[in-house]
Each structure stands twice: as C-alpha cells, then as structure tokens.
C-alpha cells in the first residue's frame, strides 16, 4: 500500500513538473489577486497593513481552489482512474496520494510565497513567520478539501463553479482560525496559539474525511 502511495505520488509529481504551468499559474493568479486589492481599496498603507493577513488568506483559498478544479479530470478522461479503482490499492489511498501531490505542488508553494507577497500589502514583518506557519498548516486542509470538491464534480462539464459553492463554505473555519492565529499578535488578547492548534485539528479531521469521501464520490462516477 505504501509503495502504491509512493508510486502515485512520484508519477503525479513528475507529471506536474514536466507539464509545467500548474504551479506558476497558481502563483501568478495569487499575485494578481494581491495586486487587485490595493487598486480596489486605495493605497492607504495603514488599511492595507490591517487587512493584509485576511486578504492573503482569501487569495490563498481562491488559488488553491482554482488549481484543484482539474485534480482528477485528466485521470478520469483517459481512463487511468478506472485502472486505479480496479487495482488492489484502495481508492482511498489513491485519493490521499492525489491530495498530497496537490498540496506539494500548489498548497505548499503558495503558502511559502504568500507571506513574502504580503510585502505588497504592507504586511507587518513580525507577522511573516506566524502567517507562514499557519498557511503551511492550513493549506494541507485546503488541498484535502479541494481534492474532495474536485472528486465530487469530476464527471461534470460545468464543475468549476459548483466546486466553489460546495467547498468554500467548508473553507470558512480554516480561514477563520488561520487569520486568528496570525492576527492574535495584533490584538490585546493573544489566542494565536490556541487558534493554531484548532487549525491543526481541522487538518486532522480533513485528513480522515477527505480520502473516504473523495473515494466514495469517484466510485459513483465510475460505475
């Protein structure tokens, strides 16, 4: 089972790097959203500094979600998914491997890049490290849930919008605790540690729920 997990991981990472475009496009999208914010809100440095953590989180959610749209699509279209479903490896393990690949190729790079791009929004330098910690943790849940959303809509032509409607509500707790764990430094009551722990708890719940739900959804498309 471990070897199957590793081989799917290796295959998809190779595909992601050889095809290119995926990671670069996601970061490009992230950058565009971040650039649009000051243009829409006006270049007030204090305002930008205050909203920077939240704005970066929103940009992260959208980038992860948009890059997940096609997570299962290629394998579903060319029939690889059926082969994976018929193999000895449980589809749940495959789902976990695919979600891990998505995290490695888009969640993690975005989470590392995001706080650095925060300088465009006048982000307080003391917040860069806590923000990066929260985002690296939280993006794991984002990728797991995104893989679930992509699995739910894999056989649909107009899946993109539906994924957003289904998955963004589930992103709400991730974002709330992600932001709390960063902005706790700015307020008088410091509950950032607790928030980070709750964020980690959400990741663990997603880790349990997502592979099983994704596999169940995929099976209903494969019969």
């Amino acid at each position, binding site marked *: 089972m471990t070897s199957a997990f590793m081989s799917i991981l290796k295959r998809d990472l190779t595909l992601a790097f050889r095809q290119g475009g995926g990671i670069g496009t996601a970061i490009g999208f992230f950058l565009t959203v971040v650039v649009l914010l000051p243009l829409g809100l006006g270049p007030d440095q204090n305002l930008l500094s205050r909203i920077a953590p939240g704005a970066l989180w929103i940009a992260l959610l959208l980038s992860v979600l948009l890059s997940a749209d096609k997570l299962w699509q290629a394998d579903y279209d060319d029939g690889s998914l059926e082969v994976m479903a018929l193999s000895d490896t449980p589809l749940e393990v495959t789902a976990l491997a695919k979600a891990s690949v998505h995290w490695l190729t888009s969640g993690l790079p975005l989470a590392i890049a995001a706080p650095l791009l925060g300088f465009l929004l006048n982000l307080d330098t003391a917040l860069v490290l806590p923000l990066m910690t929260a985002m690296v943790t939280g993006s794991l849940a984002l990728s797991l849930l995104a893989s679930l959303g992509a699995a739910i809509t894999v056989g649909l032509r107009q899946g993109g919008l539906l994924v957003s409607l289904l998955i963004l509500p589930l992103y709400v707790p991730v974002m709330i605790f992600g932001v709390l764990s960063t902005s706790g430094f700015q307020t008088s009551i410091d509950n950032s540690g607790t928030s980070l722990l709750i964020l980690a708890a959400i990741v663990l719940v997603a880790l349990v729920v997502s592979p099983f*739900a994704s596999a169940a959804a995929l099976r209903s498309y494969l019969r």
Partner: protein
Amino acid sequence: MSSIERFANPTRFLKLQAAVQPWVWAITIALFAIGLYLGLVRSPTDYQQGETVRIMYVHVPAAWSALMVYSVMALASIVAIVFRHPLADVAARAAAPIGACFCFLSLATGSLWGKPMWGTWWVWDARLTSMFVLFLLYLGYMAVWQAIDDPRRAARVAAIVAIVGFINVPIVKFSVDWWYSLHQPASVFRMGGPTIHKDLLMPLLVMGLAYTFLFLALHLKSMRTEIGARRIRQAELAQTGAIR
C-alpha cells in the same frame, strides 16, 4: 421483513402518506394557531426588548428546524449510502429546499430583530456565520442535484455532500458556547434546565412543535411529488425506448 423495510417501499409509503397527510396538516394548523396566539397575544413583553421579543417565536423555532432538517437530510443520506434505499434519496432530496427556507427565515428574522436590538442588521460572529454557512451548504446540496443528470449518480454524490456538510451542524449548535459571541448562549436546551421564564418558554415550545409538524407535512407532500416526478420520468424513458 422489519417494519422499516415495510414502509420504505414507495407504494406503501404513498398509501401511508395519503392517510396521514390531512391529520398532519390539521395538527400543524392547530399548533400554529395556539403557538401564535400564545406568542403574539398572551405572552408578556420583555422589559428591555419590548414588543420585538415576539420575533423570537418565529426566529428560534426556524433555527431549530433548519438544524433538524439538515440532520434528517444527513441521516437519510447515510441510510441511502449504506442500504441503497431509493426512498432515502427521495427523503433527503425533498428535505433540502424546506430546510433552506427555514434557514433563510431564521437569518432574515434574526436580522430584523438585530436592527433595533444590536443596532445592526448583521454581525459576523460565530453563530450567525455558521448559520450562514449552513444556508450555503443547503444551496450546494441542491446545486448537486441540479448539476448531475443521472439521478442515481446525483443521489450518491449529493449524499456524500450532505454527510460531509453535517460537520457544520454541531458547530452551529455549540458556536455560542465555544466562542464569545454577540448572540445569546443556549437558554432552552442546555445542561441544568432552561434559563428562560416559563411565560416565554411555553409559546416557544409550542411554536417549535408547530414548526416540526410543518416540516413533516411539507416533507411528506414533497416526497410524494418527488416519487411522482420519478415515475413520470421512468414512464417517459420507457416510452422512448431508452429503457425496458
């Protein structure tokens, strides 16, 4: 054959539904008449809130029902996934729009009450936000049914969505205890008994029961409609020769 299986047969269900439906409507109307009379006429006004306290009799049961309907939906979805029972799919699908309406009603009445009391239509605190998320989950669930053509596949996928979304229900219930919130904490269903005065509690409980029966009445009717719609679809497909 167990009793559950007996009533899970669509034809038997329709027979039962036809027999029960008028009674359920009668009880619903009677409970609403009593509840609204007690709530809007008999119950005392609050010394701080004045007449606006009466919004509570519409708002609180609507919120309870929204949570209850989602739980019914999730339970029906689990039954549908585990036992593959078509009637469970029908039950889950029929519950969603009703629950969404209850959810919207509780958000709208809460907002109307919030304006004079809190001075704002809306605050982004834990209870309100999680209730709003529940509303979005209802919409997402209904969108899945809309988006997938094959009804069997739609049922499976929608059931998964409903079960995953159920995680939100306890969050809504306990949000006011877990986080500091502008919304008042639970005052009826709590450890150590209700903290609300019995003059206010009585009409509230009657209204809660009235909403439950309203849901039952609408749900039974809506399930009948859904079964009818499926049979029409089957008949049409059979006519065109798509299935035999």
